[in-house]
């Protein structure tokens, strides 16, 4: 089937099986194998992408689900100002994810910061899809809170200048 979608800012028309997982579409059809993992649904959490701004496990998203949607991988997200907020949060908390889960964790942090979630239980629940054990829970919560703070400050500055 033919699927129209936007991946990393590029509008694409892909001809593929309707049930092909998004992770494999990214690896095989767009050649994005450096960032996205594919664990066949084993919930490693390392294949996270943003679909319309919400963090999702791309190995669990079939092709037909992305029709007309915007997919953002870490490759394009890393260049945005939103990523700068997350980097600031990492620095102020003094804890960084490992190389393996850096991309996925950052995208989930972005999703949580974007939605403004501050409830620790909910933050940890969302982050529990990443099985990589490199960060402790308190740091994860603090990163989200610091990220929300940084985002809010940036938005306020933008409003003032506008």
């Amino acid at each position: 089937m033919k699927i129209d979608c936007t991946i990393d800012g590029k509008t694409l028309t892909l001809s593929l099986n309707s049930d092909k997982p998004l992770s494999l579409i990214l690896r095989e059809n767009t050649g994005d194998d450096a960032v996205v993992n594919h664990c066949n649904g084993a919930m490693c959490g390392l294949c996270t992408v943003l679909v319309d701004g919400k963090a999702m496990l791309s190995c669990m998203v079939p092709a037909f689900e992305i029709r007309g949607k915007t997919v953002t991988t870490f490759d394009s997200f890393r260049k945005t100002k939103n990523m700068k907020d997350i980097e600031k949060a990492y620095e102020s908390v003094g804890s960084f994810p490992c190389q393996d889960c850096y991309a996925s964790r950052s995208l989930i942090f972005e999703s949580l910061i974007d939605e403004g979630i501050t409830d620790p239980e909910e933050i940890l629940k969302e982050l529990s899809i990443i099985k990589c054990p490199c960060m402790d829970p308190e740091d994860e919560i603090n990163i989200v809170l610091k990220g929300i703070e940084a985002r809010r400050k940036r938005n306020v500055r933008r409003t003032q200048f506008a």
Partner: protein
Amino acid sequence: MANRKNFSRYNMRCGILLHAKAGAERISELKLPDLDARYLALTGSDLPGSNEIEFFGRTMPLIAKETISFQDQIVMALFAPDYESAMLMMREIELKTEPLEETPEMGTLPDSLEYGWGEMEENAEGKYKEIETSFSLTRISRRNKRLYTVTAWMEGLNMHIEAPSQWVELIRETVEKATGYPKRNIIVHLLPYTAKHDEFLIEPAILAAIAATATIKTGLPSEIRDEGYFSRPAVNVRRKVLMDEDTKPVFETVDMTVDQGAFAFAPEEYQRQAMAGIIPPYPLKGFRGTIKIISSPSHPASFCGSLGYSEALAATEYHISRLAEAAGTTPNLYRMTIEKEKRKFTDYIPGYDLDGQKKCRVSVVSASSFDRKWSANTFQKEEFGLLGYLKGIGIATGAGIAGFSTTLSKETGFSAMMTFTQKQNVTINTSAVTHPGTMKIWKKRISEKIIPGRPDGVMFLEPGPDTMDTGPDVLARIVSSFTLQLDSAAKRLAVLKETEKLPVSLRFDAENTYYPCEFENTGNGAVVCEVKIDKATMIPSVTGVWGSFAFPSIMDRSSLENSLRRTIMMTLRENGMDIPLSFRIHLDITEDGTDDTISSVQQLARGLTLGALSNAMHQAAGDLASSLPISAAEINEAFREGV
């Protein structure tokens, strides 16, 4: 680094692997469907050259031929125009196996390594108190769910391989042996990777050999993908100690048995590293240590970032806490009574000053209120009905080591070359081209010694046919040992450039500092770990970790702290611990400013965390929690049987 050739995926063959479902079996039938020209199946007999990978003199088949030695061994590879077609066709392939009557050939194993000093005495007259302890780690064997790809393609006479790899030379050698393609024409392009358990040491070389064979046979670029595999060996350490009336250990016997799986890689080095860990830090009149390597039809063990030292160090720390229990005091106070100012000089670890370790221990003990908690838990243990108090706290203290032993360093010819050019630049020919952050630090350190203020004038040569083999990036040797080698070479070159005609080159062994004993102690640390077993669910969780580390020099404090935190977290999770919301790692890192070898952070932190965790679990659950990793179900079962 040369860029990857921009070929279309439509002109490529995509490969997947068929893995064995069980070990110690014989392939009775491998039935393939009719494959058209678009497909290629590769079995053990289809490789034009030798079907084996060699690592430090030990070999393992690339693809199982008749006998399957271990579960998950590669039985065949199937290449197709795309992965979906390959997977669909793989379903048509029938593999029939039957159990082997005899144990399959597992390769040669080394004799037990024995070391000791003093005359051992028997406890014939009941003069001594006899204590026996046992520490065991069960095998952890699983796929790490991280998919990676290895690509091979031809360009003129050159065979290009793109892979994540901890040892580029191993890929080139394995591809040369498997395909007969000259090593000079094999060019490896490194992909970025994080090898938490050294999983990119052996497997990428195997996949590269298979992909290169497919490229030669089809004439098309070939890509193969697979998940990394992590296998921690099963370890058992039994100790027997004779203590005098003052509860001081006098004679000690240690037997360590390690099951490295179907094929042992560098088993002699494992024995040496493990021996450095099992020698206790306290004085003894007599000591006998034995390290025995055994094999079983399971996945060959990874280096796991330590190659035996961490596990052995954890076993020693576990043992010291059991002695403290027998003496009726806290492990911290007990160590104060038995340890001297310096530890004994042995063939494996030097007689270094224990003051640094004591400082680390005092720091974590006071931060965690260790003595109070340990005593409280011990008193409460008996008062809480059938299940006990289910809370525990443990401590471990030790020194770090890094890189290979002196014996292995002498045997291997890993080297690099530094040249001062006519344009007043410095070039380095090495295969140890690693993380950009590390290379930035190297450039800065070298430029300070030869061309002050010009770090851009220091250049690492692109990988090519003449690249020198600096050895594998394992046991933190590239970051630690190699950094010092570069420093030393830079100092010598700074002198040579003034006296010799330019260009002047200096070839140096990557491991040319031969120590009087096998390893040099580098860095100290102490870790306290507190655990709690939930009374209803029996889920073991860690409530807090306190760590104090002292290193000779710190290149990047933030990376070091992150690395320590990651290693601690990974070790806890790997061993079945639940991490509650309130969990926190309290770290204290100090630098003593000396120019000594930089320690392997992962090795030290892993060993100490494992030791502290074993001690804490032992206090919480007693002998019932006898092995790590442990799950809630196993604790429940142990209590049911124990009660």
